[in-house]
């Protein structure tokens, strides 16, 4: 079953444009989807959206409401610029579209909660790193009891080089790392103590149910030699369990080709964005909840919101306390 997709927005945090860089090529190559139009949602996106329309030979729109009312696509891939992201998602969700949502889903927890109320169709947030084959295998092994009862996770999610995010790397990358830890152990976070570690890194000490703890280092360093800008220099997870230890080094390439002048490092067999689209397609066509659905956007937003509070106050923040305040 082929699903028609409207590409909505060609921006993100700062200068990011994951629509052009990630989603568009993945949709174009995926047999389960067909891109039928593009929409610019912010003046800064116009040129990129026009280029995409030309590249794909599909109509270009600069009026979202008009596009939503005239293009009969059941799906929207939303990667709107940060200043307009919430209002764009609001319109797309109210129009009843299934949504692939760029990360972060929204800039704040209250915004996330409000938008979550509007979702009627399938919403998949683009937490694609959990679909890395090593991560999915590890999650399955943990569920199967290979290490007994997990009691601690140590995680490093560190990108080298690329354009620093003006809104902070915690907002930029935090959802990825928190989501992967959740994929691995699936145990809710109850407490967060966060602290900055240099200009681009944050250390998150999380307390989960059952006394499980996790520590996540997330962020960006400067550019490093032999690593293309924006690639992960550290992407690893160590899970300690009552009956064993599971170490995942997801930055380790499966294949390395080194020549006199180049080095090509790649994972096998496919990229995580394509695997994300597989999940999206399955969720939409079967109606089953996605493992990276709107609830996951809320869970990660709760952790990152508490992390920001912890950084501001210098002390641990209880998510239960936050829930009571919200209530």
């Amino acid at each position, binding site marked *: 079953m082929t699903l028609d997709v409207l590409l909505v927005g060609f921006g993100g945090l700062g200068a990011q444009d994951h629509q052009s860089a990630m989603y568009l090529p993945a949709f174009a190559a995926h047999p389960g989807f067909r891109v039928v139009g593009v929409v610019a949602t912010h003046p800064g996106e116009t040129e990129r959206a026009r280029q995409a329309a030309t590249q794909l030979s599909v109509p270009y729109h600069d009026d979202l409401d008009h596009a939503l009312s005239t293009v009969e696509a059941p799906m929207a891939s939303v990667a709107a610029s940060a200043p307009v992201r919430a209002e764009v998602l609001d319109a797309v969700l109210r129009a009843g579209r299934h949504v692939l949502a760029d990360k972060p889903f929204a800039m704040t927890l209250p915004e996330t909660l409000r938008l979550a109320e509007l979702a009627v169709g399938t919403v998949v947030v683009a937490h694609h790193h959990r679909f890395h084959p090593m991560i999915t295998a590890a999650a399955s092994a943990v569920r199967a009891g290979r290490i007994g009862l997990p*009691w601690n996770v140590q995680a490093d999610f560190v990108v080298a080089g690329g354009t620093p995010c003006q809104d902070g790397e915690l907002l930029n990358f935090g959802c990825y790392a928190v989501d992967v830890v959740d994929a691995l152990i699936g145990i809710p976070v109850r407490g967060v103590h966060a602290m900055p570690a240099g200009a681009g890194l944050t250390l998150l000490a999380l307390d989960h149910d059952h006394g499980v703890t996790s*520590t996540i280092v997330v962020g960006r360093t400067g550019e490093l030699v032999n690593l293309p800008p924006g690639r992960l220099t*550290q992407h690893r997870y160590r899970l300690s369990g009552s009956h064993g230890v599971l170490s995942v080094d997801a930055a380790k390439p499966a294949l390395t080709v080194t020549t006199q002048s180049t080095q090509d490092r790649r994972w096998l067999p496919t990229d995580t964005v394509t695997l994300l689209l597989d999940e999206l397609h399955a969720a939409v066509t079967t109606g089953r909840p996605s493992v990276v659905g709107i609830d996951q956007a809320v869970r990660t937003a709760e952790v990152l919101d508490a992390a920001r509070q912890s950084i501001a106050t210098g002390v641990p923040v209880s998510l239960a306390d936050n829930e009571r305040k919200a209530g």
Partner: protein
Amino acid sequence: MTSITNMERDSTNAFGVLVIGTGAIAELHIAALRASTRTQLVGLVDTDQARAAAASHANGGVRATTDLAEALTWPEVDGCIVCTPNVSHATIAAAVAAAGKHLLLEKPLATTTADATAVRYAFATAGRTLAIAHTHRVYDYSLAVKAALDSGAVGEPTLIRAALLGGWIWGDWHAWVLDPHRSGGHALHNGVHLLDLVCWWMGATPESVYARGRRQTAAELSIYDYLEMVLRFPGDRVAHCELSRAHRPGSLVQRDILVVGTGGVLTLPWDGEQSLVFDERGVSALLPAGGSAFERQLDGWLDAIAGGPVIAGGEDGLAAVAMAEAAELSMATGQPVSLTPVEVGT
């Protein structure tokens, strides 16, 4: 008790060392003494007479006693190595200082900041050298990390992650380490190694400690066999220390270092040094051969006595005790604990 046996001092006039406490760690110190051409083991002290006798027998009949005061009067004793349970360190160190001997003291310096301060003062007053066995400073891996950081290759470190993970090694419920009144708790007993190490690598004094502990092997433990300790340094710099005697399988040995600096990244991954053995018992680590840290530590102590810099002295020992004491408090309260400059001895 009088001496069990006596042995004539070697005619080389080597530095005479009295080893106080003859448990497992003492064997490593004695092996270093045996390998050294600069020292001679001249006596042993242990409060357990049978253990003292056994240690004497194992070391060529060297003189041994249960009476520390008596041993400190032996003229051939130039310095002491103390390997007793942690709670006794301060009292024994005070006696050694009062006797005018130099001291290489197993970590921790003491089990409280107040006691550590008193020991440091006693040696400063006595004009004798106090070295603390923060042995990890002289392992190959830590020296390599220190050299790389000091070279400026990765700029100023802003994040250090240091993990030392292993399985249960502490015997049964009778082990003194499991009694927080005798060991001070895991942060004091072994945590000081990593706390000292990351400060040495960072080249800075931390402002606060946040720690989490877990009683993984048994809920009934009175100490935490798994520790996470986070040090915050001025300028938003952080060190995360992870220390475990709780991991399974018990054969697990992992040492993992990650440093992110303003100009680069240093990694010493858990499989960076060790080889893997695949045999009928499964997969296990084969650690590399290398220089003896205990021999280096002994040489460092002797060099310091001769006027050189001490590898880890009283100030370092006091700082580590203050951090570990704060870590234990943090684990009890769930909150970060501030370190004042007075506490860390600067």
